[in-house]
């Protein structure tokens, strides 16, 4: 089986890459922020952190919608030919689950805020409509939903990252390079199998 030099690996488009890493970065910040802010007693700090969390959360929602729109209109680069079909299928399923979670999590947060009777005002300027009426029982339920979806996302992201690193540094099939701009690395020595 032939190996593709790193410089010739078929890669995702630049917008796909930018959205991928930007969303990843924001999620990496939002998750610990959510965990931390939730435990705070009512204070100025808590109000500020909740606001930032919601503002960046809605931003992620928009970026994810853009990412999905781009994905639907731009076919990803083909996987290296020597990846077994079961791994290709698993990867496809993994990515679909990630998209689903990245949509549902900010939506559940928005719904949670609505059920708690607190409008989401994006960046303190754009007041978003409440997704549902204020309802303490629903708010409690949505808190569990938001938390559960988040923990599921963390687990899947861990697998997603581990798989990318496995393919790159154990299989040496250049899969991770597909999501990196062509500049780096210039070339990656590939072990002969």
């Amino acid at each position, binding site marked *: 089986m032939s190996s593709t030099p790193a410089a010739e690996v078929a890669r995702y488009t630049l917008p796909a890459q930018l959205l991928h890493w930007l969303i990843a970065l924001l999620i990496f910040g939002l998750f610990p922020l959510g965990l931390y802010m939730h435990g705070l*007693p*009512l*204070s*100025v*700090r808590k*109000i*500020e952190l909740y*606001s930032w969390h919601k503002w960046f959360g809605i931003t992620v929602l928009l970026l994810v919608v853009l990412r999905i729109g781009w994905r639907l209109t731009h076919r990803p680069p083909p996987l290296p030919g020597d990846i077994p079909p079961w791994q290709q299928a698993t990867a496809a399923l993994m990515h679909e689950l990630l998209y689903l979670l990245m949509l549902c999590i900010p939506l559940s947060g928005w719904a949670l805020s609505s059920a708690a*009777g*607190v*409008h*989401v*005002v994006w*960046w*303190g*300027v754009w*007041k978003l409509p409440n997704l549902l009426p204020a309802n303490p029982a629903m708010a409690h339920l949505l808190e569990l939903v938001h938390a559960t979806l988040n923990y599921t996302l963390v687990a899947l992201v861990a697998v997603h990252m581990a798989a990318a690193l496995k393919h790159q540094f154990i299989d040496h099939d250049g899969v991770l390079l597909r999501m990196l701009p062509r500049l780096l690395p210039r070339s990656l020595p590939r072990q002969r199998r």
Partner: protein
Amino acid sequence: MSPLSIKTLCGGALLSICAAAWAQPVPAAAYTHALPESSVSFSATQMGVPMKGHFKAVTAQIDFMPGDLAKSHVEVAVQSASVDAGSAQTNALLAGADWLAAKADPQTRFVSSQFTPDGPGRYWVSGTFSVKGHSQPLRVQVSTHPDGKDLIMDAAFTLDRTAFGLGTGSWADTSVVAAAIAVQVHLVVSPQ
């Protein structure tokens, strides 16, 4: 009775009922009793998000005589500890020392000193507003309209919370909780 006179009787009764319904209610000489439907509510903004609340314990001493404004007097008070902004945590914070300090000053109140007419059913009412040990003169526009034999009195005003020390310590930061607090007073008053 003859059929004709029954018809006349019914027709007359119907007309009287219609006339009664159409007739303007006669304003009472004096309204002295505030009904439990009266409410005092407020809205604030925290980081762009509108928040609302009200006070559960409202008392009012009313002596409102539309025909004798010089003798009219209105006093509205709320128990500061009865604040309800939607959650137990928030209520405890608002009743606490940084905000209403209900333990130190249990009542938030407005006491009128002067009524000035401002069009049909509308008045400018001057008085003193007191909260958290601070008192300031306040002039509010009150609009009234009859509700059966009762009278509805509505007033709305905006106060600067920093003038009253509402929100001290870290809460003084008006970029988190805005300085302007809108207050709505809705009194339903009845004649004795």
